[in-house]
C-alpha cells in the first residue's frame, strides 16, 4: 500500500501531506468531524538513519511547540536502523533515542499518538518509531520484526529449521504481526476489508495515558509473566523502603 492510498483510506475527508527529505513525509489530515490530525511518516522501507530520525523528531517538536495538542499519526514503513560505521560513530543511539523521546514527550504533553505500520520496521528502528507511539496499528502485509530468523539462527547457533519449528509453539521470538500482537505490541491489525477511517477515529478516542502493552500481552497469552512480574516489583518497592 502506498502512503497516498493509506492516507486516502484513513482520512477520506482530506489530507495535505508532502514528502520531506530522506524518505520522510509530514502534513495534516482532517477527520470526518473536521478535527485536524498531524501526520508524520517514513516511507519506502528506508533504513532509519540519523538524518531520518532527526527530520521526524524535528517535525514532532514543532507540533508540540504549537501547543494545540493535536493528535499525531505516524505512518511507518522503514527497515532496521541503518547499519554503517559512520552512523554508529555519530551516535545513532542518540538519534533513535531522541526520536523515541520526542514521540513519548508528545504523548505526555497531551497529544494522542498512534503509529500505523504499513510496511516494515525492525530492531532499533522499530523501537524508535512504531513502538514509541502510545498505540500501534498494523495494516495487513506489514512486517514488524526484531531480527529475521536466519540472523537469530546465526546468533543463537540453532539450525533454522529447528527455530522455525519452535516458532510454531511460541510467539515469543518469531517475526511478524501475529506473534508481536500476541505479546501486546500491536493493538489492532487492520485488513483490506476494514474501514480504516472508522477505525482510526475510534482508536484516536481511546484513553492511552499509561502503557498497557504488558496487560495486553498477558490477556493474549503471548507474554504470560511480564505484567505480573512488573506488578510484583512495584508492590515490593514500597515495602523495601521500610
Amino acid at each position, binding site marked *: 500500500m502506498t502512503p497516498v492510498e493509506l492516507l486516502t483510506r484513513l482520512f477520506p475527508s482530506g489530507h495535505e501531506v508532502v514528502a520531506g527529505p530522506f524518505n520522510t513525509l509530514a502534513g495534516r489530515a482532517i477527520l470526518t468531524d473536521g478535527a485536524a490530525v498531524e501526520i508524520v511518516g517514513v516511507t519506502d522501507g528506508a533504513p532509519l538513519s540519523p538524518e531520518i530520525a532527526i527530520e521526524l523528531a524535528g517535525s514532532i517538536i514543532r507540533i508540540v511547540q504549537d501547543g494545540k495538542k493535536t493528535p499525531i499519526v505516524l505512518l511507518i514503513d522503514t527497515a532496521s*536502523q541503518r547499519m554503517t560505521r559512520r552512523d554508529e560513530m555519530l551516535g545513532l543511539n542518540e538519534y*533513535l533515542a531522541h526520536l523515541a523521546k*520526542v514521540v513519548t514527550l508528545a504523548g505526555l504533553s497531551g497529544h494522542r499518538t498512534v503509529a500505523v505500520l504499513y510496511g516494515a520496521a525492525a530492531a532499533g528502528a522499530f523501537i524508535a518509531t512504531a513502538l514509541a507511539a502510545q498505540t500501534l496499528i498494523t495494516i495487513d502485509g506489514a512486517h514488524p520484526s526484531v531480527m529475521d530468523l536466519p540472523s537469530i539462527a546465526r546468533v543463537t547457533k540453532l539450525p533454522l529449521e529447528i527455530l522455525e519449528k519452535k516458532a510454531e509453539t511460541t510467539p515469543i521470538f518469531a517475526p511478524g504481526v501475529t506473534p508481536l500482537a500476541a505479546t501486546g505490541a500491536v493493538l489492532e491489525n487492520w485488513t483490506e476489508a476494514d474501514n480504516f477511517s472508522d477505525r482510526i477515529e475510534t482508536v484516536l478516542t481511546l484513553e492511552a495515558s499509561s502503557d498497557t502493552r504488558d496487560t495486553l500481552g498477558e490477556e493474549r497469552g503471548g507474554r504470560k509473566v511480564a505484567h505480573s512480574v512488573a506488578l510484583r516489583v512495584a508492590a515490593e518497592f514500597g515495602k523495601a523502603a521500610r
Partner: protein
Amino acid sequence: MIPEEIVRSPSWYESSARNRITGLLDAETFREILGPAERVMSPHLELFDLPPAFDDGVIVGRGQLDGKPVAIIAQEGQFMGGTFAEVSGAKIVGLLRAVTASAGTPDGVSAVLLLLDTGGVRLQEANAGELAVSETVRALLGVRAAGIPVVALVGGRAGAFGGGGIVTACCSHVVISEQGRISVTGPEVIETNKGAEEFDSRDRALVWRITGGRSRVLLGGADSYVKGDVASFRAAAARSRNAAPPFTLETMAAEQDRLEKRLSSYGDCRDTPEIWARAGLADPASVPDIDDDAFLALLSEREIKHDAR
C-alpha cells in the same frame, strides 16, 4: 612497586552486577526486590535448552547513596549478554513505574541508577525483549517527567548495545569509562551485513574509536567520564544526580539542535580522529592512548558539557 595508574581497587569492568551494586551504594543499604530466592526466572530458556538464572540477569532494588534513597537496576552482562527479555525487562519496567508512582511520597527516591551491561534484546525472547526495551523507554521517561533523574552507568564487558544503546541515551545523565561502549548495531553485525570494509570488528582499536567511552564523551554521547574503578563510578553517580536536565520540551528542542549541529559538523567524517581534529583537538591521534588523568585534563579544558538530553 605497582604503578599508581593501575587501578587496584575493584574494577567496574571485572565486577559482577551484584558487586557493582555493593560498591555503588552505602554499606548494608541495598534491599533487593524479587531476589534470587524468589526464583523469578525466564520461562523461555528451557525451550532452547539453556540454563536459567535465579534473577534472569537483572537485579533491582533500592538503597542509599550518600544517605539519600535511590532505586537501582543492574544488568549482569555475563548472563545471556545482559539482555532485555520478558522477566529481566519486566523487573526493570516494574521498578521504574514504582519510582514514578512514589514520586513525592515518603517512599520516593532521589534518583534511579541504571547499570547497563547489555548486548540488547535477548534473541531467544526477541519479541518480549523488544517490547521490554520499548516499555523501559516509556517508563524511564515517565520517571524523568516526574522530576527524578535517571543516571546511566556504562563500563561493563557487554557495553550498551542494541536497545541498550537507545535506553542509555534516554537517561538524564550518562557516566562512562574507557572500556564502556555505546552503540546500536554491534560491529560484528555490521560486518556480517555490510562486510569487513565497512566495519572490521576484529580491529578493536577501531571498535573503541567508534563506540568507546572516550569517543562518546568527546562527542557528547556521554556526560561524565570516569576511571574504571567502582569508587569512581560511585562518585560520578552521586554528583550527577544533582545536575541532570529535566525531561521537557525545552530540553528536547535543545537536543534537536545539538544533534542537528553534530550531523552538519561531522556528518562527512569517517573516523573519530577526523572529528576531533575538526573540533580543534591538538593531537587527535593520541586521544585513545593517553592515560586517564591526561584524558580527564583534556576534557576539563574543553568543557563539552551540555544540558540537552
